[in-house]
């Protein structure tokens, strides 16, 4: 049963998943996330050194990833270090998996209905 709280929470979940997928739609951002996963924590300057884009572009992509909750920024002295937050990624994958399973159930129901003998 979907109560009002469930619907609201579901709505936020849909939007968060949308945000994660929108952030990941860009191949440079996926590459950036890969490099950052490898590095653990890194500054925009370090990241730019390992990617074929400018530091300015890296900062812009980091901001988008941060807004989607995929990256966090921590101040370390004079530097800002970035790190991957895996939770939204995991949660999005689980949400998509749940939806896949839901479609499997629906398709199975369709199969049963289509294969059932005609009622006369």
């Amino acid at each position: 049963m979907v109560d009002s709280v469930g619907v609201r929470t579901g709505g936020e979940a849909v939007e968060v998943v949308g945000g994660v997928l929108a952030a990941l739609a860009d191949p440079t951002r996926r590459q950036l996330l890969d490099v950052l996963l490898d590095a653990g924590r890194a500054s925009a300057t370090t990241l730019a050194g390992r990617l074929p884009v400018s530091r300015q572009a890296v900062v812009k992509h980091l901001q988008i990833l941060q807004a989607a909750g995929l990256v966090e920024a921590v101040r370390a002295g004079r530097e800002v270090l970035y790190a991957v937050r895996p939770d939204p990624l995991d949660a999005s994958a689980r949400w998509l998996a749940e939806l896949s399973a839901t479609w499997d159930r629906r398709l199975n129901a369709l199969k049963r209905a289509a294969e059932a003998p005609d009622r006369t």
Partner: protein
Amino acid sequence: MGDAVQGDAVQGDAVQGETVQGDAVQGADRIEREILVDAPIERVWRLVSEPGWWIGDGDRSAQDISRDGDLVTVDDPRYGRYLVLVVSADAPHHVSYRSSPLPGEPPAEGTSTLVEFVLAEQGGGTLVRVVESGFASLAVPAERRAAMVEGNTAGWELQLGVAKRDAEHVRA
């Protein structure tokens, strides 16, 4: 292939998450599933060309369905009201709809996904493929999202609890 989907229903990869996890990392904006149905294509077509046939738990007898041109409203006493827009139909092979994953939402740009069904005759039966796409377009503007992400972990746990409960409800 499709026959293996009988009974326990799920083809493993979806629930195990490896494929879907990979898809999420790849930024894949779609879900694709298929099933082989042992019935003629015309018969399957009659079922999938009913807008919103997937809404609810399979029992549509208590649903109130009204139609205004290409826009169909399905009122389910348990799951709420869903609006489904018929985008295109090419009998008996292809039909597509737009619908929001949330009840009450109009199937507009930014609030809906595209749900396509492709039917093909195969070995005396019908292969049915569903493709749901456009999840990334459900994104909200970055500022609002940034604010939402603050309370993220608790929100996700709640949502997954709801999803699990819904899933079990449907299965029951």
